Protein backbone atom coordinates (compact mmCIF):
# COMPACT_ATOMS: atom_id res chain seq x y z
CA UNK A 1 0.00 0.00 0.00
CA UNK A 2 2.78 2.43 0.98
CA UNK A 3 4.63 1.43 -2.14
CA UNK A 4 1.53 2.05 -4.28
CA UNK A 5 1.11 5.55 -2.86
CA UNK A 6 4.76 6.36 -3.38
CA UNK A 7 5.02 5.05 -6.94
CA UNK A 8 1.61 5.66 -8.43
CA UNK A 9 0.09 8.54 -6.45
CA UNK A 10 3.15 10.64 -5.58
CA UNK A 11 5.50 9.30 -8.23
CA UNK A 12 2.82 9.10 -10.95
CA UNK A 13 4.45 6.14 -12.69
CA UNK A 14 1.21 5.66 -14.64
CA UNK A 15 1.77 9.07 -16.23
CA UNK A 16 5.16 7.98 -17.51
CA UNK A 17 3.60 4.89 -19.08
CA UNK A 18 0.81 6.98 -20.57
CA UNK A 19 3.22 9.48 -22.11
CA UNK A 20 5.37 6.60 -23.39
CA UNK A 21 2.35 5.02 -25.09
CA UNK A 22 1.24 8.34 -26.52
CA UNK A 23 4.68 9.06 -27.98
CA UNK A 24 4.87 5.53 -29.44
CA UNK A 25 1.46 6.05 -31.06
CA UNK A 26 2.76 9.27 -32.56
CA UNK A 27 5.63 7.33 -34.07
CA UNK A 28 8.36 8.39 -31.63
CA UNK A 29 10.82 5.69 -30.65
CA UNK A 30 11.06 6.10 -26.90
CA UNK A 31 13.99 3.74 -26.63
CA UNK A 32 16.07 6.17 -28.68
CA UNK A 33 18.01 8.96 -26.98
CA UNK A 34 15.83 11.78 -28.30
CA UNK A 35 12.59 9.90 -27.68
CA UNK A 36 13.71 9.02 -24.16
CA UNK A 37 14.63 12.64 -23.45
CA UNK A 38 11.25 13.85 -24.69
CA UNK A 39 9.43 11.30 -22.54
CA UNK A 40 11.45 12.19 -19.44
CA UNK A 41 10.92 15.91 -20.06
CA UNK A 42 7.13 15.70 -20.52
CA UNK A 43 6.64 13.30 -17.63
CA UNK A 44 8.74 15.31 -15.21
CA UNK A 45 7.29 18.70 -16.15
CA UNK A 46 3.70 17.49 -15.79
CA UNK A 47 4.41 15.57 -12.58
CA UNK A 48 6.24 18.41 -10.85
CA UNK A 49 3.68 20.97 -12.00
CA UNK A 50 0.75 18.97 -10.63
CA UNK A 51 2.52 18.24 -7.35
CA UNK A 52 3.62 21.87 -7.07
CA UNK A 53 0.10 23.26 -7.46
CA UNK A 54 -1.45 20.86 -4.95
CA UNK A 55 1.43 21.29 -2.52
CA UNK A 56 1.60 25.06 -2.62
CA UNK A 57 -2.12 25.27 -1.96
CA UNK A 58 -1.91 23.05 1.10
CA UNK A 59 1.28 24.64 2.37
CA UNK A 60 0.05 28.20 1.90
CA UNK A 61 -3.08 27.34 3.83
CA UNK A 62 -0.94 26.16 6.74
CA UNK A 63 1.43 29.11 6.35
CA UNK A 64 -1.41 31.60 6.61
CA UNK A 65 -1.53 30.65 10.30
CA UNK A 66 2.11 31.69 10.80
CA UNK A 67 2.80 35.24 9.64
CA UNK A 68 6.24 36.47 10.78
CA UNK A 69 4.62 38.59 13.49
CA UNK A 70 3.12 35.50 15.07
CA UNK A 71 6.25 33.38 14.65
CA UNK A 72 8.22 36.08 16.42
CA UNK A 73 5.86 35.94 19.37
CA UNK A 74 6.02 32.16 19.57
CA UNK A 75 9.82 32.15 19.45
CA UNK A 76 9.96 34.76 22.18
CA UNK A 77 8.42 32.28 24.59
CA UNK A 78 11.28 29.80 24.35
CA UNK A 79 14.84 29.95 25.67
CA UNK A 80 18.16 28.26 25.04
CA UNK A 81 18.34 25.51 22.48
CA UNK A 82 14.57 25.10 22.63
CA UNK A 83 14.27 28.53 21.03
CA UNK A 84 16.65 27.46 18.24
CA UNK A 85 14.60 24.34 17.57
CA UNK A 86 11.36 26.32 17.50
CA UNK A 87 13.04 28.91 15.26
CA UNK A 88 14.17 26.23 12.82
CA UNK A 89 10.70 24.65 12.78
CA UNK A 90 8.92 27.96 12.28
CA UNK A 91 11.37 28.77 9.50
CA UNK A 92 9.82 25.94 7.54
CA UNK A 93 6.26 27.25 7.79
CA UNK A 94 6.59 31.05 7.86
CA UNK A 95 5.99 32.46 4.41
CA UNK A 96 8.17 35.25 3.10
CA UNK A 97 9.71 36.25 -0.17
CA UNK A 98 13.45 36.82 -0.38
CA UNK A 99 13.12 40.59 -0.12
CA UNK A 100 11.44 40.20 3.28
CA UNK A 101 14.45 38.51 4.81
CA UNK A 102 15.99 41.77 6.00
CA UNK A 103 12.79 43.22 7.46
CA UNK A 104 12.26 39.89 9.22
CA UNK A 105 15.82 39.88 10.46
CA UNK A 106 15.40 43.40 11.76
CA UNK A 107 11.99 42.69 13.21
CA UNK A 108 13.29 39.71 15.13
CA UNK A 109 16.41 41.46 16.33
CA UNK A 110 14.68 44.61 17.46
CA UNK A 111 12.12 42.51 19.34
CA UNK A 112 15.00 41.15 21.39
CA UNK A 113 15.16 37.66 19.95
CA UNK A 114 18.64 36.17 20.32
CA UNK A 115 20.77 36.35 17.18
CA UNK A 116 21.20 32.56 17.13
CA UNK A 117 17.46 31.96 17.07
CA UNK A 118 17.05 34.36 14.17
CA UNK A 119 19.75 32.51 12.29
CA UNK A 120 18.22 29.12 12.97
CA UNK A 121 15.10 30.57 11.38
CA UNK A 122 16.97 32.03 8.40
CA UNK A 123 18.92 28.84 7.71
CA UNK A 124 16.01 26.43 7.85
CA UNK A 125 13.62 28.60 5.95
CA UNK A 126 14.99 28.20 2.40
CA UNK A 127 16.54 24.78 2.97
CA UNK A 128 13.58 22.90 4.34
CA UNK A 129 10.00 23.52 3.49
CA UNK A 130 6.93 21.37 3.53
CA UNK A 131 6.85 21.29 -0.25
CA UNK A 132 10.31 19.83 -0.52
CA UNK A 133 9.34 17.12 1.97
CA UNK A 134 6.49 15.83 -0.20
CA UNK A 135 8.38 16.25 -3.45
CA UNK A 136 11.39 14.40 -2.06
CA UNK A 137 9.07 11.62 -0.91
CA UNK A 138 7.72 11.18 -4.40
CA UNK A 139 11.18 10.89 -5.89
CA UNK A 140 13.53 9.47 -3.28
CA UNK A 141 11.12 7.75 -0.92
CA UNK A 142 9.86 8.49 2.57
CA UNK A 143 12.94 7.58 4.56
CA UNK A 144 15.28 9.82 2.59
CA UNK A 145 12.80 12.70 2.55
CA UNK A 146 12.36 12.64 6.32
CA UNK A 147 16.09 12.33 6.87
CA UNK A 148 16.70 15.30 4.56
CA UNK A 149 14.30 17.44 6.55
CA UNK A 150 15.69 16.30 9.90
CA UNK A 151 19.25 16.97 8.74
CA UNK A 152 18.25 20.41 7.48
CA UNK A 153 16.72 21.23 10.85
CA UNK A 154 19.80 19.92 12.66
CA UNK A 155 22.06 22.20 10.59
CA UNK A 156 19.77 25.14 11.34
CA UNK A 157 19.74 24.46 15.09
CA UNK A 158 23.48 23.85 15.35
CA UNK A 159 24.30 26.78 13.06
CA UNK A 160 22.15 29.14 15.11
CA UNK A 161 23.60 27.85 18.38
CA UNK A 162 27.18 28.32 17.17
CA UNK A 163 26.46 31.89 16.06
CA UNK A 164 24.88 32.51 19.45
CA UNK A 165 27.94 31.18 21.26
CA UNK A 166 30.28 33.35 19.20
CA UNK A 167 28.52 36.43 20.57
CA UNK A 168 28.51 38.38 17.38
CA UNK A 169 25.77 40.79 18.32
CA UNK A 170 28.09 43.67 17.44
CA UNK A 171 28.19 42.32 13.89
CA UNK A 172 24.65 43.40 13.15
CA UNK A 173 24.39 46.55 11.05
CA UNK A 174 24.33 49.60 13.31
CA UNK A 175 21.05 50.99 12.08
CA UNK A 176 19.28 47.81 13.16
CA UNK A 177 20.84 47.71 16.61
CA UNK A 178 20.02 51.35 17.15
CA UNK A 179 16.53 51.18 15.76
CA UNK A 180 14.03 52.09 18.42
CA UNK A 181 11.05 50.85 16.56
CA UNK A 182 9.19 48.08 18.24
CA UNK A 183 5.89 48.90 16.66
CA UNK A 184 3.80 45.84 17.20
CA UNK A 185 1.47 45.12 14.38
CA UNK A 186 -1.17 42.56 15.06
CA UNK A 187 -1.64 39.93 12.42
CA UNK A 188 -5.15 40.24 11.01
CA UNK A 189 -7.72 37.56 11.80
CA UNK A 190 -8.47 35.48 8.78
CA UNK A 191 -11.48 33.34 7.97
CA UNK A 192 -11.17 29.95 6.28
CA UNK A 193 -12.28 31.66 3.07
CA UNK A 194 -9.53 34.28 3.33
CA UNK A 195 -6.98 31.54 3.82
CA UNK A 196 -8.25 29.61 0.80
CA UNK A 197 -8.07 32.76 -1.34
CA UNK A 198 -4.57 33.45 -0.05
CA UNK A 199 -3.54 29.87 -0.81
CA UNK A 200 -4.95 30.11 -4.33
CA UNK A 201 -3.09 33.36 -5.00
CA UNK A 202 0.12 31.77 -3.71
CA UNK A 203 -0.33 28.88 -6.13
CA UNK A 204 -0.68 31.26 -9.07
CA UNK A 205 2.22 33.52 -8.12
CA UNK A 206 4.55 30.67 -7.11
CA UNK A 207 3.75 28.83 -10.30
CA UNK A 208 4.61 31.86 -12.40
CA UNK A 209 7.84 32.38 -10.50
CA UNK A 210 9.01 28.78 -10.36
CA UNK A 211 7.88 27.37 -13.68
CA UNK A 212 10.92 28.58 -15.66
CA UNK A 213 13.20 26.93 -13.09
CA UNK A 214 11.27 23.69 -13.43
CA UNK A 215 11.63 23.76 -17.22
CA UNK A 216 15.36 24.46 -16.95
CA UNK A 217 15.81 21.89 -14.17
CA UNK A 218 13.92 19.17 -16.03
CA UNK A 219 15.70 20.09 -19.25
CA UNK A 220 19.09 19.62 -17.62
CA UNK A 221 17.76 16.46 -16.00
CA UNK A 222 16.65 15.09 -19.37
CA UNK A 223 20.06 15.79 -20.87
CA UNK A 224 21.84 14.09 -17.98
CA UNK A 225 19.36 11.23 -18.12
CA UNK A 226 19.96 10.34 -21.74
CA UNK A 227 23.15 11.93 -23.01
CA UNK A 228 25.81 12.06 -20.33
CA UNK A 229 27.67 8.77 -19.92
CA UNK A 230 27.22 7.11 -16.56
CA UNK A 231 30.96 6.71 -16.16
CA UNK A 232 31.47 10.51 -16.15
CA UNK A 233 28.98 11.12 -13.39
CA UNK A 234 30.24 8.16 -11.39
CA UNK A 235 33.77 9.48 -11.67
CA UNK A 236 32.87 12.98 -10.48
CA UNK A 237 29.93 12.46 -8.11
CA UNK A 238 30.06 8.74 -7.41
CA UNK A 239 32.00 6.64 -4.96
CA UNK A 240 35.17 6.97 -7.03
CA UNK A 241 35.65 10.57 -6.00
CA UNK A 242 36.21 11.21 -2.28
CA UNK A 243 35.80 14.94 -2.86
CA UNK A 244 32.44 14.60 -4.61
CA UNK A 245 30.47 16.09 -1.71
CA UNK A 246 32.75 19.10 -1.38
CA UNK A 247 32.70 19.66 -5.12
CA UNK A 248 28.89 19.40 -5.29
CA UNK A 249 28.49 21.81 -2.38
CA UNK A 250 30.89 24.43 -3.73
CA UNK A 251 29.32 24.28 -7.19
CA UNK A 252 25.85 24.57 -5.69
CA UNK A 253 26.46 27.55 -3.40
CA UNK A 254 26.52 30.41 -5.94
CA UNK A 255 23.67 28.89 -7.91
CA UNK A 256 20.19 30.06 -7.23
CA UNK A 257 17.23 27.87 -7.90
CA UNK A 258 14.04 26.85 -6.27
CA UNK A 259 13.95 23.39 -4.73
CA UNK A 260 11.37 22.43 -7.34
CA UNK A 261 13.87 23.13 -10.10
CA UNK A 262 16.70 21.37 -8.29
CA UNK A 263 14.95 18.07 -7.71
CA UNK A 264 14.76 16.91 -11.37
CA UNK A 265 18.51 17.46 -11.74
CA UNK A 266 19.11 15.51 -8.56
CA UNK A 267 16.82 12.73 -9.72
CA UNK A 268 18.68 12.34 -13.00
CA UNK A 269 22.11 12.42 -11.33
CA UNK A 270 21.04 9.75 -8.84
CA UNK A 271 19.82 7.43 -11.58
CA UNK A 272 23.21 7.82 -13.24
CA UNK A 273 25.22 6.61 -10.30
CA UNK A 274 25.91 9.75 -8.28
CA UNK A 275 25.93 9.14 -4.54
CA UNK A 276 22.88 10.11 -2.53
CA UNK A 277 24.71 12.27 0.03
CA UNK A 278 26.55 14.09 -2.73
CA UNK A 279 23.25 14.95 -4.41
CA UNK A 280 21.58 16.06 -1.19
CA UNK A 281 24.57 18.33 -0.50
CA UNK A 282 24.16 19.84 -3.92
CA UNK A 283 20.43 20.46 -3.35
CA UNK A 284 20.99 21.99 0.07
CA UNK A 285 23.77 24.22 -1.24
CA UNK A 286 21.69 25.49 -4.15
CA UNK A 287 18.62 26.28 -2.08
CA UNK A 288 20.19 27.59 1.13
CA UNK A 289 22.92 29.90 -0.06
CA UNK A 290 22.68 32.01 -3.16
CA UNK A 291 24.31 35.21 -4.35
CA UNK A 292 21.09 37.28 -4.36
CA UNK A 293 20.19 36.33 -0.80
CA UNK A 294 23.75 36.91 0.43
CA UNK A 295 23.79 40.37 -1.14
CA UNK A 296 20.54 41.12 0.68
CA UNK A 297 21.89 39.83 3.96
CA UNK A 298 25.06 41.86 3.57
CA UNK A 299 22.99 44.99 4.13
CA UNK A 300 21.86 43.77 7.53
CA UNK A 301 24.98 42.14 8.97
CA UNK A 302 28.68 42.90 8.90
CA UNK A 303 31.18 40.86 6.85
CA UNK A 304 32.50 38.81 9.79
CA UNK A 305 29.08 37.49 10.70
CA UNK A 306 28.20 36.97 7.05
CA UNK A 307 31.37 34.94 6.62
CA UNK A 308 30.61 32.88 9.71
CA UNK A 309 27.09 32.24 8.47
CA UNK A 310 28.36 31.06 5.07
CA UNK A 311 31.09 28.90 6.64
CA UNK A 312 28.66 27.22 9.03
CA UNK A 313 26.19 26.46 6.27
CA UNK A 314 28.86 25.03 3.98
CA UNK A 315 30.40 22.93 6.75
CA UNK A 316 26.99 21.63 7.81
CA UNK A 317 26.00 20.73 4.28
CA UNK A 318 29.29 18.91 3.63
CA UNK A 319 29.02 16.94 6.87
CA UNK A 320 25.46 15.92 6.05
CA UNK A 321 26.59 14.83 2.57
CA UNK A 322 29.32 12.56 3.87
CA UNK A 323 27.00 11.30 6.60
CA UNK A 324 24.39 10.32 4.04
CA UNK A 325 26.97 8.64 1.84
CA UNK A 326 28.16 6.62 4.82
CA UNK A 327 24.70 5.30 5.67
CA UNK A 328 23.20 5.32 2.14
CA UNK A 329 23.35 1.54 1.86
CA UNK A 330 20.77 1.33 4.65
CA UNK A 331 18.34 3.58 2.76
CA UNK A 332 18.26 2.60 -0.88
Amino acid at each position, binding site marked *: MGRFIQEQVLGMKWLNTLIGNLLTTLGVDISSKIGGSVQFFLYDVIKITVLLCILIFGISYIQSFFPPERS*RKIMGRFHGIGANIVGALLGTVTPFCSCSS*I*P*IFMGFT*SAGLPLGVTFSFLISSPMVDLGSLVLLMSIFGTKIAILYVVMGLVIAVIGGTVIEKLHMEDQVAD*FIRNSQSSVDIEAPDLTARDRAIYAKEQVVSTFK*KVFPYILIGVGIGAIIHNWIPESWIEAVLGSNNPFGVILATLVGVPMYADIFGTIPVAEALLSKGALLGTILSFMMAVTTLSLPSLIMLKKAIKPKLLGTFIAICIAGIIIVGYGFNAIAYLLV
Partner: protein
Amino acid sequence: MNIKVLGAGCKSCEALLNATNEAVANKGINTEVEYITDMEKIMSYGVMSMPALVVDGKVVSAGKVLKPKDIEKLL
Protein backbone atom coordinates in the same frame (compact mmCIF):
# COMPACT_ATOMS: atom_id res chain seq x y z
CA MET B 1 -4.01 61.66 1.39
CA ASN B 2 -0.54 60.21 1.71
CA ILE B 3 0.05 56.78 0.21
CA LYS B 4 3.27 54.78 0.45
CA VAL B 5 4.29 51.38 -0.82
CA LEU B 6 7.10 49.74 1.17
CA GLY B 7 9.28 47.17 -0.51
CA ALA B 8 12.81 46.09 -1.21
CA GLY B 9 12.48 46.16 -4.96
CA CYS B 10 11.41 42.60 -5.62
CA LYS B 11 8.79 41.64 -8.14
CA SER B 12 5.85 41.48 -5.77
CA CYS B 13 6.74 44.91 -4.36
CA GLU B 14 6.62 46.41 -7.84
CA ALA B 15 3.34 44.63 -8.52
CA LEU B 16 1.83 46.26 -5.44
CA LEU B 17 3.13 49.66 -6.52
CA ASN B 18 1.53 49.28 -9.94
CA ALA B 19 -1.75 48.10 -8.44
CA THR B 20 -1.75 51.03 -6.03
CA ASN B 21 -1.14 53.52 -8.83
CA GLU B 22 -4.02 51.98 -10.71
CA ALA B 23 -6.32 52.17 -7.69
CA VAL B 24 -5.40 55.81 -7.10
CA ALA B 25 -6.12 56.64 -10.72
CA ASN B 26 -9.43 54.77 -10.61
CA LYS B 27 -10.60 56.67 -7.58
CA GLY B 28 -9.44 59.95 -9.05
CA ILE B 29 -7.38 60.80 -5.98
CA ASN B 30 -4.87 63.51 -6.70
CA THR B 31 -1.76 62.26 -4.96
CA GLU B 32 1.61 60.77 -5.71
CA VAL B 33 2.21 57.21 -4.48
CA GLU B 34 5.59 57.04 -2.76
CA TYR B 35 7.75 53.96 -3.16
CA ILE B 36 9.96 53.42 -0.13
CA THR B 37 12.90 51.06 -0.50
CA ASP B 38 15.10 52.40 2.26
CA MET B 39 15.31 49.69 4.92
CA GLU B 40 15.65 52.07 7.84
CA LYS B 41 12.49 53.88 6.85
CA ILE B 42 10.68 50.62 6.27
CA MET B 43 11.65 49.44 9.73
CA SER B 44 10.16 52.52 11.31
CA TYR B 45 6.75 51.15 10.36
CA GLY B 46 7.45 47.89 12.15
CA VAL B 47 6.40 45.68 9.27
CA MET B 48 8.20 42.43 8.60
CA SER B 49 6.45 41.16 5.52
CA MET B 50 7.03 42.88 2.22
CA PRO B 51 5.39 44.47 0.34
CA ALA B 52 3.38 46.73 2.61
CA LEU B 53 0.91 49.51 1.97
CA VAL B 54 0.81 52.59 4.18
CA VAL B 55 -2.04 55.10 4.08
CA ASP B 56 -1.67 58.32 6.06
CA GLY B 57 1.08 56.82 8.21
CA LYS B 58 -0.88 53.67 9.05
CA VAL B 59 0.05 50.21 7.78
CA VAL B 60 -3.08 48.83 6.14
CA SER B 61 -1.64 45.74 4.49
CA ALA B 62 1.57 43.71 4.76
CA GLY B 63 2.98 40.72 2.96
CA LYS B 64 0.37 40.73 0.23
CA VAL B 65 0.12 41.86 -3.36
CA LEU B 66 -3.32 43.42 -3.34
CA LYS B 67 -5.50 43.86 -6.40
CA PRO B 68 -6.41 47.45 -7.40
CA LYS B 69 -10.02 46.78 -6.32
CA ASP B 70 -8.98 45.77 -2.80
CA ILE B 71 -6.73 48.81 -2.53
CA GLU B 72 -9.59 51.12 -3.51
CA LYS B 73 -11.52 49.82 -0.50
CA LEU B 74 -8.59 50.64 1.79
CA LEU B 75 -8.14 54.21 0.58
